[in-house]
């Protein structure tokens, strides 16, 4: 193993916050070594070698997040919102990754990026896969994959390290999709990589002005729903149209919205009753119907209602409005979720994807050496602390493991349920001195050591406590080192 190819080196330079949990070999090192072993076993099979090398190469890349969901669930809209540029869906699987200049490729060949109605548009009718390089800060530690509806679940979960699953309203077909995704031996022992997004939150409640807070409540309910909780790490609601608009609102649009907001509220409301009325004749302000139509298509009737209300409430500059919209549309929360569950857990997601990939090779081409590899794979899955943390987290969220009283929430936090940063794990909402941090950590560690040996708890609970103890020890070594 050449040290220059070590993934941990790249990882630590990219992310300061997500330090290694343990001073020993991290799970990504173990997996890397296992892939090397596998390459030795399969050195005479070009297919397997290419596949395994591809997975090694993936270690160095940013986390791949696929955006999947039923037709018209708002996949491309959410992708556009995350990147901060409106893209017309290509109809093909489209990869968005960071690049110095806006470029698009189909295979080896560069294809032009056109503009249509102010949206970026790659016209490749027959391509299966398009790669778009786009200079965007959001893509620095993230590769987004926009999958067309109907892409088989194995493809989505095979290509991506993590998945945003979009739905308008949780339907049994959505549930089946997620269950299929988790029906794999490796996926089962490392349930980590899905965030459920209620993607068209603005349509809830018939576009009422408080639709978004209502959507947040629904998302909260799903987080507790027994059927949904074990299948995803989090549920967030996003008003896709609003989120895109928030990041791409133009000066002329803002002027038009401001003009609308200048109308008396009752008068405007009359014209905002329906989309038809809004674009109809007999409008009190001099705004071209085409402009109005563009507005309602970009923002939705709900978006126009909300933005005009916000402008009236005093968010009367483009910057103020944008800030409000990012927050209200749920885009902020979505980004946070991606951060906590995906980019911060980059190593473990990459390791997981690599193990899944290795599993494919071991099944497709069994040979004498592969039994040993399979055993090693299983050992990593069973013993790597990162995976044990995730399993405990899933068990706590799914209600399979319950700890008494406050301990439940604390355990979930300590194993990284809210984020893997030590401060988040310890639940500290201020910047502590090193001494304070050490004190808090030792205190927590001591308490959980007691829990892990507490005879009043049952076996499963004590085991859960010992996983928490290990997490605390990890933080301690990190602090010392």
């Amino acid at each position, binding site marked *: 193993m050449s040290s220059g190819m070590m993934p941990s080196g790249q990882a630590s330079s990219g992310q300061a916050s997500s330090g290694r949990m343990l001073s020993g070999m991290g799970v990504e090192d173990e997996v890397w070594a296992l892939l090397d072993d596998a390459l030795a076993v399969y050195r005479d099979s070009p297919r397997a070698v290419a596949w395994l090398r591809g997975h090694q190469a993936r270690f160095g890349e940013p986390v791949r997040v696929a955006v999947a969901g039923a*037709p*018209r669930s708002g996949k491309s809209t959410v992708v556009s919102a995350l990147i901060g540029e409106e893209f017309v869906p290509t109809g093909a699987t489209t990869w968005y990754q960071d690049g110095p200049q806006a470029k698009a490729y189909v295979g080896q060949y560069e294809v032009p990026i056109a503009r249509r109605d102010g949206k970026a548009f790659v016209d490749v009718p027959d391509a299966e896969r398009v790669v778009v390089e786009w200079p965007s800060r959001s893509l620095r530690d993230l590769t987004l994959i926009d999958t067309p509806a109907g892409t088989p679940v194995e493809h989505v979960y095979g290509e991506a390290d993590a998945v945003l699953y979009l739905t308008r*309203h949780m*339907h049994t077909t959505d549930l089946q999709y997620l269950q299929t995704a988790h029906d794999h031996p490796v996926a089962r022992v490392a349930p980590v990589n899905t965030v459920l997004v209620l993607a068209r939150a603005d349509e809830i409640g*018939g576009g009422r002005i408080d639709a978004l807070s209502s959507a947040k409540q629904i998302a909260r309910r799903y987080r507790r729903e027994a059927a*949904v909780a074990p299948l995803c790490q989090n549920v967030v609601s996003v008003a896709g149209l609003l989120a895109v608009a928030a990041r791409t609102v133009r000066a002329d649009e803002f002027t038009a919205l401001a003009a609308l907001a200048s109308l008396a509220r009752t008068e405007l409301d009359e014209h905002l*009753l329906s*989309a*038809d*009325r809004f674009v109809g004749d007999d409008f009190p302000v001099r705004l071209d119907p085409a402009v109005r139509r563009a507005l309602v298509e970009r923002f939705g009737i709900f978006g126009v209602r909300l933005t005009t209300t916000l402008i009236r409430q005093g968010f009367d500059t483009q910057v103020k409005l944008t800030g409000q919209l990012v927050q209200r549309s749920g885009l902020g929360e979505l980004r946070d979720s991606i951060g906590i569950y995906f980019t911060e857990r980059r190593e473990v997601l990459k390791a997981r994807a690599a193990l899944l990939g290795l599993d494919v090779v071991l099944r497709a081409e069994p040979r004498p050496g592969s039994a040993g590899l399979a055993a090693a794979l299983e050992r990593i899955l069973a013993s790597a602390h990162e995976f044990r943390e995730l399993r405990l987290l899933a068990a706590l969220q799914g209600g399979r493991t319950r700890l008494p009283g406050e301990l439940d929430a604390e355990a979930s936090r300590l194993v990284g349920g809210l984020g893997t940063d030590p401060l988040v794990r310890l639940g500290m909402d201020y910047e502590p001195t090193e001494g304070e941090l050490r004190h808090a950590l030792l205190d927590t560690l001591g308490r959980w050591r007691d829990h892990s040996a507490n005879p009043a708890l049952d076996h499963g609970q004590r085991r859960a406590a010992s996983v928490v103890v290990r997490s605390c020890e990890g933080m301690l070594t990190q602090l010392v080192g």
Partner: protein
Amino acid sequence: MSAPWLDVLDDTIRACAAHNRPDLAERLRDKRARQLDPKLRVLVIGEPKQGKSQLVNAMVNAPVCAVGDDVTTTVPTFVQHAETPSAALVRGASIANTPTERIPVPIDELASQVSANHGSGGDLVRAEVGIPRALLDSGLVLIDTPGVGDLRPTHTASTFAALLQADAVLMVSDATAELTKSELELLKQVMTSCPNVIVVLTKIDIAAQWRRVLERNRAHLARAGVTAKLIPVSAALRLRAAKTGDKVLNAESGFPELLASVQQDIVAAADVLARRTVAVAAASAIKQLVTPVREELAARAAEGTENTIAALNEAQRRIDELRRRSARWQTVLADEMADLVSDIEYDLRDRTRKILREVDKTFETADPALGWDKFEAWLEDNLTEAATTNFAWLLDRSEWVAEKVAKNFPVARDDLLPESIFPDDVLDRVAPMDKPVIEKFNLMQKAFTGLKGSYGGVLMFGLATSLAGMPLINAISLGAGALFGGKSIMDESDQRLRRRQAAARAAAARHVDDFFIKFSKDCRDAARHIQRSLRNHFSTLAEELQETLLESARSARRAVQDDNSERERRNRDAKRELDHLVTLYQRVQTLAGGQTPALGISA
């Protein structure tokens, strides 16, 4: 006079009962009762969060159904006409059963009561609301249902239970997205039990692109082969218009068109509707009845006689087989027994010759006058041993022959071998031996005890000969000879000795010869006896077997004949039943105005 559809329905119910399908009959009876009921049930169905409850509210212009941003409707809500507004919760075992309990609640508390009841895990089956509305005056009942495809399957189940009672269906899908695959599936499913469907496109107020969605949906419906009206509405506009009394807005909401459609296609067309509903239900029932009858006909034509004929062929084949094998086992028995007899005889001769050679050798030197007694005992022992061994061998071989014959017997059976190969009287064949006549020597007296046969393992054999004055000198190989060893022959004259020796040899040879002739005859007799008894045994078995086979062949032949006539009778019956069903189906088709598909069979 009863309506024509009622006759058809009654006939179909009778047919269901006649074909042992009480379940179908029960379902049709339900349908019949409902058709006779003046109430017209219109089911509002769709996936969750499409605006079903709001649609019902907007239709009656009152907030009778709870609406909310999350899953709200958990039980079907029946909205019907009443002079004064009222509401009730109905508890019961299931929708189909008669409600067990009806609890009146204030109409404005209905929503909270429903959720409270559901939260406590109550067995609430539906909510009922009565309000005075011209729309509902004619007996129209609007049924708001929980969304289909919701994560809680109990919600969906109650929707499908309600579907069975519906006269017409309003399928709700919102304008923010086209009909999805699962919605089209649901629609098709609905059509099978209730063909009178209007698809309502809701929320057109918030969907800027609703006209495009409408067009796409039309295309989807056409592709799916669903003939249903598609009406775009906005409940929000309608409710607002009702509040402000804005006629223009009301028109914009699309509700006047929807209500007109409901009035014209559902209420006014109640009879057509009844006929169509009945036709669909009856057609599906008849189809279910026809299938087994048709299959029976086809199957009997193809495979009816096959089994019996196969049985007949099998029986005949086995008789032939038995005959062929009978010849074989008889040959085997005869051959083997012949071999056995010759082998046994050779063996006996071989053994006696060995004894004689021994005797000759002894009396070349020994003097018979000495120790004759002992010689006599020795000879007796040896002959006995020879006879015993020989006879035992005969028995072994016979047993082996019996097994070999059994192996060549046509069928394998446990009792194929006789319990004992040997007839009880086989030993009688071996008669006591006559006493041989041996010339007298002086000084001695000859006495032979005869050879006596007694089996069960032991052959008794007696020989007594005295050759007095014969000295015995040789002791080469015989226990008897050894006993003479010490005596000398010197005291006898050489000549006398030689004569005595010759006489002794002749006496022994004669005796052995007699023994051989007698005993080999006995053996042959015994063998023949065994052969005969084996032959009898196996012949009896073969006869029994043949009789069984003949009987099964006869019964198979009878079965083929019986089967033919029985089959023809059943065929006639089945054809008649089929004709009856087909006529019934044609009547159903006329009822529906040719809307149901052809049955796909000819009478």
